[in-house]
């Protein structure tokens, strides 16, 4: 089974220690198991709870940007659905 590290109790994403294929199970470092909604490469982020568009995405217990789409549990979180809150030229 694939593994993922959860860095902080407030985090909404975990970091994969193994690549995972869609439908595969992932054990989080706190013992929970979630299912991957898509193929995700090693070290990429997976949503561990649903997120509405506009909410802050949390890693290290800190915000790393905001969701620009609805994100479901098990989906990959990267530049297609997360945008930085800093030094953004076009605010939306």
């Amino acid at each position, binding site marked *: 089974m694939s593994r993922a590290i959860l860095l902080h109790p407030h985090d909404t994403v975990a*970091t994969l220690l193994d690549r995972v294929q869609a439908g595969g199970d992932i054990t989080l470092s706190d013992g929970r198991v979630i299912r991957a909604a898509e193929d995700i490469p*090693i070290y*990429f*982020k997976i949503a561990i709870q649903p997120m509405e568009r506009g909410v802050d995405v949390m890693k290290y217990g800190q915000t*790393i940007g905001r969701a620009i789409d609805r994100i479901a549990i098990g989906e990959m979180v990267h530049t297609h659905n*997360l945008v*930085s809150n*800093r*030094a953004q*030229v076009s605010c939306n």
Partner: protein
Amino acid sequence: MADVATFPGFRRAVGPPGIRNTVLVLSITGLTNPAARRIAAQVRGTHVIAMPYSTGLINEDREVHLRALEGLACNPNVGAVLIISDNVPKAKSLGAGIDARGQRVEMALLDHEGQDAISLVAMGTRLAAKLVREVSGQLREDMPLSALNIGLKCGRSDPSSGLMANPATGHFIDGHVDAGGTAIFGEVVEWLGAEELLAARACDPAIAAQLRNLPAEREVAAIAAGLDLTGNNPSPTNIAAGLSSIEEKSLGGISKTGTGQIKGVLDYAKAPGEPGLFAMDTPNYAPEHLTALAAAGCQMALFTTGAGNSFVSGLIPTLKVCANRSSCDKLKEQFDVTLDDLLDQNRPATEGGTRIAKAVLDTAAGRLTWGEILGEGDDIVSRFGAAL
């Protein structure tokens, strides 16, 4: 004396010990760079730094240029320096400053060689050879490890950097600074999103304000320039490896600074002057940042990476630290410390810190880094404005 951790290093007339004993061929004017490179190529035991600029530098740009030249010449890893120049007053003034700091200095000047670069190379070669002979006889002696000033850098980071390579480096740095050592970090853009965590560690409110204001100034400059930071920093390489935003990169990056108090914020290439952990106002690109660290007197750098990054400082041994499994598998002649097994087993970063401490000691004692062996080093001072 109680048990003080030591390493075999090179004693200096003034200031901290070196971990290498290089003769620096320092071309301080762009016109003489080709001659300086020929001199260094002919004389074993030398390292060349060739400054591409000189005339017409003004204001902060000029101040940084001169500070960096003197700082590089007086780096503890330099046993003696040979100045090569097309500008007699500049060479004499810089040479006097270097001499006043107790560093052995000679010079070969184009005007004294009848404007003949061939004669300049001949004169420079003789002087460089003499200096190498002088310094080559010096033996290593036991020196306190706490005399090391260690520069910090990350490059071509990925999420594994923030999970293992950086926090492991941070654990080592905490121990080094607690033991009376010095460390410097910089790369101001990579404080964006982590400013409050850094500011909370400042030793007074003025330093906390600097740790907030410097990245804010960079943010304003990026927006004013119409530059979308995503795609620039994080870079395309960072993004391809899984980092999504500058905040994510910064939060992973600052863990290499450990958890200790931040004693001050240094100007580019400025030496701290006392032990402890310091921030420096530097751009994040490796050649400019590492050169500022070398000019500030760091004898060594710890450089974490995820995807791999071959660049090192030319003057200071730069240890590459990596925890990315496939990078560690592929880049056997790049990483001096591999931590991929620890990350794979989800081991505590403290174990990585122990591994880094061993590599630091071995490198300080003389073991060459991959970057030194393969000659990946270069030294580039930042510019802060246009010349006249």
